[in-house]
């Protein structure tokens, strides 16, 4: 430094920064490494998962492999396998010499080919190059000289040195020829070798197939493959990327086993010494429902469309599962995982894959309808008849406007035409006018269809609760206020929820309902026979929907009311009418005039006071009337006396006398009526009940179609927002014991500020969010307590959680346009009328009747299973049957097809719409094409008919022992339908399958399998055949089927007569004497009275 240094060091210039730099640099480097570490591992926890997976899965596979080897050895011990193996070894030995020879030749040919090829390709390249020059040279002389050059070259001899050392000289054409020759030779040789080896390969394939067919699990080879994959695994993101749907799912980066072909439980993936599966083990289970993955290919669907979560995120488990504040689609919890189904399958009423019914989501869907949620809450697809009706009204208006416009336009065009300058113009304009007239005619057709539809829809509209216009005819007046106080006190399983009404409200509501009810007189009914009524009640099928008895004694379905205490509330005369035909209405209602039409209106027009689905026009103005009670309860086509018996029996069902109810004469107080109207409106009673003056009342609740994706901020947790957000020991606001028991997960301790928590709490105790709030009577929450069980809350919560506005493309929604749509539509009706209470639709599905005691040993008395109904019956017949199950307009007190069943297929008065949908449903369910074109059944010759008859009536095939014949004495003991019905009803190809193996079509049927056996590609009768069959080459099964389809009553009589013991045929082996006696009594009393 030039300046003289001072004694005292200048602190600014002399201070060293080395230490600072050192420290700063060290920290900087550390930070950089930290960033690198964070990037490589900190943000990639899945790497640790994959490391764990490698270890655990390999260990698991080792275990599995030893097991598999064992079972493989077991299979290999099997004599069949040994035989196969021996066969293989033999063919191998047999063909060995020949194969070796062929192989040797082939090798030799290949070597020679190679030798020729190397020379040939070189020379060919030169020729090609010269040819190119020839082609591109411009002058003729140049072309000529080139040609010469090529010819010269081609004639030059080239030497080929063969592998055996011999040398050959060839000109170019010779070379080419030689090359092709050897090539062909080689091809021939390899084919020859293949032929020689063919039996060996086949034998080997058979052996392998045997192993894989007989190994329940994977073969050791397959497991080795898996193991190799595991041990050689290099940590990497595993992702499904579907660009069209914006799905990027990396779930499998941790859930490595999700798609493994083995069943892997978390327990199996625990590391040694652990007591319970840790985070890793939980992640490594295989998908519990591989069959679902088979339908929803993960490569297309990914994971998040069903499970939700943040499929992209890989930085932490919470992030990946979307369980953080700002992710709108958090993973559905395990117990609610079926919510994901609803995202795409909202239009499906029943979700089943194979024989698995998805009970949680199906339960939610059913509850939403059965409990009348849809009465207050709109939900796309539910209870859509009123909406459709409205839409049709709009459409009609629109079409009428269009018609008017067309007319106007026609007139204008005609006028233009008349004034047109040229005839061409005139004709063109006239043509247009004519087109418009045709268009109007089409519109007329459309209008007519719409009218039919509104007729159907009117018929299809149902209410969850009973018609309260009939309240005076139907109920014990004094019972009403007691019921309203708390319905569950009277009937614990009722659908009627608890509205938390105070006494004044109860009085007012009762008064309104009482005073607005009909007062039309009911015909007096004489008392019936209660014992017979009880028997009818228990056998006719009432229990498929209704239950009776309380507590342990309870039996029957939950679809409709429990009738244990009906005697306390009901009026006998009304009950008889109801049982006889629940749809019978006191007065028709005209939605146009908004009034109930009485006899006086009919009288004014001089019309008879008659109203039913065939007479549904308003006498005043011709508008469509509501002519039925809006109930799903069908008519069982009982004789009036039977209805009286049942009603008498039901009237005995009571715990206390109706007269013991305290007097409720305040209900006649006209002053209370006005207030009552207010409360009826306030609580939306008309959502479930038909109430005079409330026919057009809208829904009072919020729409729930997309409730699951409603922003959490819009769900009002009221005073519990903070509690729900934070969890902790005071997190549970519900105090009521009963309500607390409704929570699927018990009292909350964790934070529950999410959709699940909101729904569960609201469903368990709807007014929970009113707790602590100061609210007036009218401000307080109206939603009643539905007194759901834990499971029901879970089902409904799952249903609501899945009710989301999905961001997936439309193609992911299950909205098929083909026959599958018919299936979707059909399920809504099947569920609407509780068809599943009696019939089995899905393999493994339990019906209510199956569960009843009385059917335990007489399974054949159960209604038929409908597993293959569409394949079985002619759709046109089905339509007829569904609209009139008695198959008769006069003799209706019976089953049309199975008179031997005591349980009765009721008349549901399906509308044309619903009939159409149901028929299509059954056809689609069995993959039958629509429309149905019947198979032509060949006409049998007399000889064939004789043969068939002899077989039919032979003691070896006693068809008519069980099948009804129309002979009343015989039919009393018959347990199968009359063959005469077959022609119109059944499909021949199905009948063939049926008589071959009925158990495969309808497991448990009383029709036995094994009647036919296969011989020489023909189905022949398994038992002894009558002598006339000697020398018959044809198919017995076919013969019999054709015969059945040509059966006439005369023929049937003939057969019956020829049957030696038809009349004295014994009872069905499985039914004991007592039941048989009871049955015959039932039939007699039911039929003859």
């Amino acid at each position, binding site marked *: 430094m030039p300046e003289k240094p001072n004694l005292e060091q200048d602190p*600014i210039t002399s201070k060293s920064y080395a230490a600072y730099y050192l420290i700063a*640099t060290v920290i900087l480097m550390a930070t950089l490494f930290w960033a690198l570490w964070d990037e490589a591992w900190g943000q990639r926890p899945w790497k640790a998962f994959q490391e764990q997976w490698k270890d655990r899965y390999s260990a698991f596979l080792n275990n599995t492999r030893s097991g598999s080897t064992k079972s493989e050895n077991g299979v290999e011990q099997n004599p069949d396998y040994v035989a196969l193996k021996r066969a293989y070894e033999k063919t191998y030995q047999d063909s060995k010499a020949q194969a070796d020879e062929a192989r040797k030749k082939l090798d030799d040919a290949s070597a020679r080919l190679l030798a020729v090829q190397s020379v040939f390709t070189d020379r060919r390249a030169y020729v090609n190059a010269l040819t190119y020059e020839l082609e591109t040279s411009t002058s003729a002389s140049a072309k000529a000289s080139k040609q010469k050059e090529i010819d010269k070259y081609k004639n030059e001899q080239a030497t080929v040195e063969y592998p055996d050392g011999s040398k050959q000289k060839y000109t170019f054409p010779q070379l080419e020829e030689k090359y092709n020759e050897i090539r062909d030779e080689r091809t021939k040789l390899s084919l020859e070798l293949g032929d020689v080896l063919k039996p060996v390969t086949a034998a080997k394939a058979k052996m392998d197939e045997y192993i894989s067919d007989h190994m329940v699990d994977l073969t050791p080879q397959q497991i080795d493959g898996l193991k190799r994959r595991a041990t050689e695994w290099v940590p990497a993101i595993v992702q499904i990327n579907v660009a069209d749907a914006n799905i990027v799912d990396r779930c499998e980066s941790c859930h490595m086993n999700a798609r493994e072909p083995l069943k892997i439980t978390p327990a199996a993936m625990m590391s040694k010494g652990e007591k319970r599966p840790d985070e890793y083990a939980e992640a490594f289970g295989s998908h519990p429902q591989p069959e679902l993955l088979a339908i929803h290919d993960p490569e297309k669907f990914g994971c998040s469309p069903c499970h939700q979560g943040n499929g992209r995120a890989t930085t932490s488990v919470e992030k990946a599962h979307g369980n953080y504040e*700002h992710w709108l689609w958090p993973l559905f919890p395990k117990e609610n995982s079926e919510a994901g189904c609803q995202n795409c399958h909202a239009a499906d009423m029943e979700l089943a894959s194979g024989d698995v019914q998805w009970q949680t989501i199906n339960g939610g869907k059913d509850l939403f309808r059965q409990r009348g949620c849809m009465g207050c809450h709109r939900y796309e697809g539910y209870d859509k008849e009123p909406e459709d009706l409205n839409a049709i009204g709009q459409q009609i208006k629109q079409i009428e406007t269009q018609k008017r416009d067309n007319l106007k336009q026609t007139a204008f065009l005609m006028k233009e035409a008349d004034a047109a300058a040229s005839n061409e113009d005139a004709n063109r304009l006239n043509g247009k006018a004519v087109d418009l007239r045709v268009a109007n005619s089409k519109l007329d057709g459309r209008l007519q269809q719409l009218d039919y539809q509104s007729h159907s829809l009117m018929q299809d509209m149902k209410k969850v609760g009973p018609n309260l216009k009939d309240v005076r005819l139907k109920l014990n007046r004094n019972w009403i206020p007691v019921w309203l106080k708390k319905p569950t006190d009277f009937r614990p399983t009722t659908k009627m929820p608890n509205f938390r009404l105070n006494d004044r409200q109860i009085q007012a509501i009762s008064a309104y309902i009482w005073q607005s009810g009909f007062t039309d007189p009911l015909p007096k009914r004489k008392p019936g026979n209660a014992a017979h009524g009880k028997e009818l009640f228990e056998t006719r099928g009432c229990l498929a929907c209704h239950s009776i008895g309380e507590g342990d004694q309870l039996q029957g379905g939950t679809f409709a009311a429990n009738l244990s205490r009906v005697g306390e509330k009901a009026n006998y005369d009304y009950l008889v009418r109801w049982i006889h035909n629940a749809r019978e209405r006191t007065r028709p209602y005209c939605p146009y005039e908004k009034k109930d039409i009485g006899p006086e209106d009919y009288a004014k027009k001089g019309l008879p006071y008659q109203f039913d689905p065939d007479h549904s026009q308003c006498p005043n103005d011709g508008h469509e009337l509501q002519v039925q009670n809006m109930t799903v309860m069908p008519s069982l086509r009982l004789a009036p006396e039977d209805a009286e018996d049942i009603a008498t029996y039901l009237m005995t069902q009571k715990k206390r006398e109706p007269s013991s109810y305290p007097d409720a004469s305040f209900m006649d107080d006209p002053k209370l009526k006005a207030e009552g109207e207010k409360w009826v409106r306030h609580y939306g009673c008309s959502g479930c009940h038909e109430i005079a003056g409330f026919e057009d009342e809208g829904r009072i609740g919020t729409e729930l179609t997309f409730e699951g994706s409603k922003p959490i901020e819009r769900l009002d947790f009221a005073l519990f927002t903070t509690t729900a957000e934070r969890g902790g020991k005071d997190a549970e606001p519900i105090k009521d014991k009963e309500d607390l028991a409704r929570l699927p997960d018990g009292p909350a301790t964790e934070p529950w500020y999410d959709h699940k928590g909101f729904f569960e709490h609201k469903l368990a105790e709807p007014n929970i969010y009113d707790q602590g709030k100061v609210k007036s009577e009218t401000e307080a929450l109206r939603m009643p307590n539905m007194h759901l069980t834990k499971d029901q809350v879970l089902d409904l919560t799952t249903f609501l959680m899945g009710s989301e506005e999905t961001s997936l493309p439309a193609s992911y929604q299950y909205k098929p346009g083909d026959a599958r749509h018919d299936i979707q539509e059909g399920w809504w009706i099947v569920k609407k009328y509780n068809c599943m209470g009696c019939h089995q639709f899905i393999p493994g599905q339990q019906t209510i009747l199956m569960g009843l005691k009385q059917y335990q040993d007489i399974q054949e008395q159960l209604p038929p299973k409908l597993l293959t109904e569409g394949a079985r019956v002619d759709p046109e017949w089905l339509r007829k049957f569904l609209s009139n199950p008695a198959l008769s307009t006069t003799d209706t007190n019976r089953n049309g097809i199975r008179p031997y069943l005591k349980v009765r297929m009721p008349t549901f008065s399906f509308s044309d719409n619903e009939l159409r949908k149901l028929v299509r449903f059954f056809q689609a369910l069995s993959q039958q094409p629509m429309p149905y074109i019947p198979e032509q059944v060949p006409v049998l010759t007399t000889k064939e008919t004789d043969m068939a008859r002899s077989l039919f009536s032979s003691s070896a095939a006693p068809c008519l022992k069980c099948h009804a014949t129309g002979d009343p004495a015989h039919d009393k003991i018959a347990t199968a339908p009359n063959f005469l019905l077959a022609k119109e009803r059944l499909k021949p190809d199905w009948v063939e399958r049926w008589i071959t193996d009925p158990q495969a079509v309808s497991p448990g049927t009383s029709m036995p399998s094994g009647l036919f056996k296969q011989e020489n590609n023909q189905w022949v009768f398994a038992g002894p055949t009558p002598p006339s069959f000697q020398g018959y080459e044809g198919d017995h099964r076919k013969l019999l089927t054709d015969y059945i389809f040509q059966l006439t009553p005369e023929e049937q009589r003939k057969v019956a007569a020829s049957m030696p013991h038809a009349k004295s045929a014994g009872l069905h082996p499985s039914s004991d004497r007592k039941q048989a006696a009871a049955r015959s009594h039932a039939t007699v009393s039911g039929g003859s009275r």
Partner: protein
Amino acid sequence: MDWRQLWEICSAPDNVPIVGLIPLLAFYIYLAWKQAHANDVLIEQLEGDAALAKTHHRKTWPFKPGWQKEVHVWPFLLRIEFLAAIIVTIILMVWSITLNAPLEEPANPNLTMNPAKAPWYFLGLQEMLVYFDPWIAGVVMPTMIIIGLMVIPYIDTNPLGSGYYTWKQRKFSIGTFLFGFIILWIAMIIIGTFIRGPGWQWFWPGQTWDHNRLIYEVNRDLPDIFGITSNMAKAIFGAIVVGGYYLLGGFVVYSLFRRYMGKDFKRMSLLQFGITQFLLLTMVALPLKMGLRLLWHIKYVWITPWFNI
């Protein structure tokens, strides 16, 4: 005391800068005050001792003869700059590794955030929306702030205190600036960040932010208190009050300047003084208006058909 709520507010990623700013600001104010104080002591000493004033190097840092008066930028400044760059990098990286930038739900115009807050550095202006109409708080005020800042060099005629920290020599300008920066800007941001909860309601620190909280607040206008009803009268009344404030205030400012800042006042041209007066009074008007609003629930002072103040 709801500690969890407090923690939630403080740990919200976008509030971290403002949480960090508070101690940072405190530290730098302390740093400035320390040096200002030392300088003021030195000034006092030198003013009392003319001889020393002539020889003294006039800095509080030591200076010995022979030391360089100027040092080379390389390495003496640059080494500090590089060091600072490294430290900033470290801070930034550690911050970035440990704390994620916020990312909330996708934008949804149908779902209003409650509270919907502006970026933290604008929360002062948003807070002003409580007291003023948007056109003042959102447009006039920021413009005035910018203009006010820009005219500072031209109205501050005090030649002292250029290039060193001092309090005594610039009491007025530093006081005013601290008032504007700390009270009107930073404090408002702190209020906006920590105090204003759902519905932009006032929640004391430690109070739970309850989305359902309802408070009764009726605001009156100043003319109403005096029973003025006609629109015309309201407009005139307001004009008088506002005009009166500026006139009276202007006089007070003049009086104070003349008495306590005579030298500065002398150096100022009329224009300079006028602008100073206006800006000063406008600045003081803000807390006054806030006070009116918070203490007496007065919404507007001056009501006209076109604008309200």
